[in-house]
Every structure is written in C-alpha cells, then in structure tokens.
C-alpha cells in the first residue's frame, strides 16, 4: 500500500517535471525567436539566463548554444515522459514485464544521450567563453553514472522476466 502511494506521488512529480521542462524549452525557443529582432532580450532569455555576450559575439554561435539548450531541456522532458509511462505500466503484483524492461532501457539510453549533449554544450560554451572571458551558464553533466546504473537495473529486470517465464512454464 505504501509503495503504491509512493508511486502515485512519483507519477505526480514526473508530470510536474515534464510540464516544467516543456515550458522551459518552449520559453527559451520563444525568447530566442524574439531576440533575433531585439538583441536586448538575450540578457534574460529564461529565468535569468544571460547570453547577451554570445549574441553580440556571433549570432551563429549564439544560435548553436540556444539549440543545445532547447535540445537538452527537450531531452530531459522526454526522459520525464518515459518515467511517467514507466510508472503507468508498473504493476507491483507483476513488476517484471517486457514493457517495463524496454522503458528502463530507453530511459538509460536517453540519460546517456543527454550526458553526451551536455558535454558537447559545455565544451562549446567553454571554448568561446574562456577565449573571450564571457559569463558561462554550464549544464550539469554527471549523468553517465546514473545511465550505467539504470542500464544494469534494466538487465536485472530482463533476467527477472526470463526467470518468471521459466517459472510460469513449470508444470
């Protein structure tokens, strides 16, 4: 009963994170489009994000950084969506099923791609930022460990499914 309640709370938080991240990605996209005409907007793109120096330096570089950020938040939102799907499919009485295993593997892959994207984004920003002494707004890139752990869990669930199916076929 406790676990079921906890799962419901987690589902609520996942929806919350999903909507929040979608708004964040959308907000950056809209302010970016507005900043094409009015460069001053790039001082406060979303929640105090200031990329004015990059905008003045090169519009192409600025656009690249913005697209990384949109992709990063969209990827995070996608992971949150997968978590929602996982929580919806999760049945505490029969937790080992192929759908749950596939979703876990997808989440693990998603986190791994997010890590790669974050590294590319940070490297790009640091390359320009350090050269011209700009203010840097880096993205956390400590996901690889989480990705590996999730992948291991997905493999454990896969083995669990095999054992369960063997057990089901024991007459």
């Amino acid at each position, binding site marked *: 009963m406790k676990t079921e309640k906890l799962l419901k709370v987690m589902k609520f938080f996942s929806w919350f994170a999903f909507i929040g991240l979608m708004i964040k990605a959308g907000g950056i996209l809209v302010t970016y489009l507005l900043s094409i005409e009015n460069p001053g907007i790039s001082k406060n793109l979303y929640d105090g994000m200031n990329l004015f120096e990059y905008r003045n330096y090169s519009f192409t570089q600025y656009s690249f950084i913005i697209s990384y950020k949109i992709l990063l938040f969209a990827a995070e939102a996608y992971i949150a969506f997968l978590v929602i799907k996982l929580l919806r499919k999760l049945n505490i009485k029969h937790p080992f099923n192929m759908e749950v295993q596939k979703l876990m593997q997808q989440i693990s892959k998603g986190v791994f791609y997010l890590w790669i994207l974050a590294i590319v984004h940070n490297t790009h920003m640091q390359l320009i930022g350090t050269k011209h002494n700009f203010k840097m707004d880096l993205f956390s890139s400590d996901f690889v460990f989480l990705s590996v752990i999730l992948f291991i869990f997905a493999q454990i669930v896969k083995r669990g499914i095999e054992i369960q*199916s*063997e057990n089901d*076929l*024991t*007459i």
Partner: protein
Amino acid sequence: MAIIVNLDVMLAKRKMKSKDLAETIGITTANLSILKSGKAKAVRFSTLEAICKALECQPSDILEYVND
C-alpha cells in the same frame, strides 16, 4: 527439443480425456496443454508422480529422449 512428451499416446492407450486427467492430477487444462505441446520448461516431480498414478504408467512411458 530433445525431450519428447508422449502424454497423448498414453492418454489414447488409457482411453482417457485430457480434461479428466487434468482434473485428476489437479492442474488446469491450459497447463496440461502446455505440457502436451512440449512448451513446458520443466515438470515438477509431484506432477509427474500424479500423472503416472493416474495413467498407471512409468515416467519413461511419458518422457522420451531423442538425440537431435
């Protein structure tokens, strides 16, 4: 599969229906069907014992090894 289940043959010899055997040994007809079709991954000794008792036969009458 190397292990062949000859349950159908024994049932025919004893002129017994699958449904009756399932009822006698206490398993579902669906599970008996899995056993007959060779889809089962394992057979419990208790199930084998019950089948042998119901059909008055030996385990070797039901299970056969074929080298493939």
